[in-house]
């Protein structure tokens, strides 16, 4: 049985982008205020899940042809590599580095190595949650 879900689909096309933008915002505010890779990743997943609800898994797979397990692996590697960089500098594992840079458009910005680690966390969270949801969803 196919239901008429024009409204859901039309709304989703807009709302997905709002959620994605918000997830990016949450991801970047993460260092000094609540947020970060974990929450950002969950928000991104929720946007993709919304797409899956409004359309179907096959369509979303066509739009985003991503192997989520590979994504998890890449995220893990990125997070581990960032943490392990402290071994090269002979400081305790996980020690993070930061400095202030003058960037065009952004002005004086502080850049942290924690951001790279968080990117890894973000990829792992999106990868793992999407794998779980796809595995459960496909069985129907």
């Amino acid at each position: 049985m196919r239901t008429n879900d024009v409204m859901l689909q039309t709304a989703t096309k807009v709302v997905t982008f709002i959620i994605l933008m918000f997830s990016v915002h949450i991801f970047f505010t993460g260092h000094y205020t609540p947020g970060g890779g974990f929450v950002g990743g969950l928000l991104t997943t929720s946007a993709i899940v919304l797409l899956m609800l409004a359309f179907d898994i096959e369509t979303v797979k066509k739009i985003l042809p991503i192997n989520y397990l590979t994504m998890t692996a890449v995220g893990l590697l990125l997070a581990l590599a960032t943490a392990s960089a402290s071994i090269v500098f002979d400081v305790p594992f996980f020690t993070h580095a930061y400095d202030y840079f003058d960037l065009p458009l952004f002005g004086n910005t502080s850049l942290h190595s924690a951001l790279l680690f968080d990117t890894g966390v973000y990829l792992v969270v999106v990868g793992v949650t999407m794998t779980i949801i796809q595995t459960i969803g496909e069985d129907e």
Partner: protein
Amino acid sequence: MSNLLLFPIIIPSFFAAILMIFPKRLKLQRVLATVGAGSALISALVLLTKVNTDGVQAVTLGSWPAPFGISMVSDPLSALLVVTSSIITLFVVFYSFPTIGVKREQSYYYPAVLFLMVGVNGAFTTGDIFNLFVFVEVLLMASYTLIVHGGEKPQLRESIKYLLVNIISSALFVAAVAFLYSVTGTLNMADLAVKIPQIEETGILTVIAVMFLVVFGFKAAIFPLYFWLPGSYYTPPIPILALFGALLTKVGVYAIMRTYTLFFTMNIGFTHELLGIIAILTILAGCIGALAYFDVKKIIIYNIIIAVGVILFGIAQLNQPGVDGSVFYLIHDMLIKAALFFLIGIVAVLFGTTDLRKMGGLIKTYPVLGWVYLVTAFGLAGIPPLSGFPGKLLIVQGGFEGPQFWGSIVILATSLIVLLSAVRIFVYAFWGEPVETVPLKKSVFNQMFIPTVILVTITVVFGVGAELFMPFISGAGEVLLNPSIYIDAVLKE
């Protein structure tokens, strides 16, 4: 500060993440899994020599000062256990090539094994009780993957039990950690060892100590919390069973060892006597199981439970021979259980069944296998000069020096039952009328047999050359009995 002690944790996680990218490339999976486990073993050996020469190594992550950041500590005990678990993982990887099956190998088997190694090595190394919970979760996640790996019907049935038991015990773990934090205000193990003696109300701490005994008891399979183990361990294929049997329960045993020597020592009269009684009950329950079954897997699985009891009895005595013996027996047991599972795996493949009554006469066709099995069985029972003997001797001595001398008598008596249960496999499978065996290619047999023989050789060397290893063992025992060495290494960095 030394990042070296983190290498046995970081290396396998790197390789596991890399292996996740191309699950179908069989050759590459095998090679990288071997390289990952092998280089972790090398780093663990380097770490052991460093700990032996320079004393306890500690690092607090993220350059935070010690009680606030997460401390990782490598004392002789943890370094020894990391080396042992790395050896076992490496041999399980070798043993998996011919036995686990291409289909399993191509669906994230090796990453799961390496992640299990990350969890086990992490749990042995961490110096923070909440971080211990995290690493236990890492190894549980990997073990969930491995226990359902392949998705056969009995595996799925048992994995539900396994999941339920472990989720409940993990929830209890967090609750116990929260109680401990609310009473002491710290979770750093060294800091706990400083703060707990200063607290006068030992009643609440005793309750928390018993809670931790329950939590770790679920993982270590002590009486009466071992009920989930025989069923859950029975279903996965032999390499996974060997990995579980050799490593997983030992993490629980290690956690009891660490907490009951380092900081839960405020009310020894109650907690350690309880531990001693439970240890003896565990041994008795394991003995009943080991004699009751005619299934090779079940017999060895119940022997895991017996060994857990023996090790914990040594710890409960809290004197030098008891603790040294426990450390020795723990390492012996990890190695010998892996070797035994490898051997019965070969026997089960040859007969196509695990039922002892359908076996017989293997000594005529595979004589070497038979004699290697007999040596391993004698090692398990603790016949001198094999590796079970020195540890058990010290534990029994510790018992006679302590208040629970009757426990030592039980351990001596049950050694005979252990011997009986292990030799029964020899009698049924290797003696008697020859039963038709499944034809097995010589090369496949060798691929299974060679890692097994090397592992058995290691246990024999460990037993015969016990004198060589005693400095390491008594070094580990010394740190366990003098918490101040551990505390100074962490807090006065």
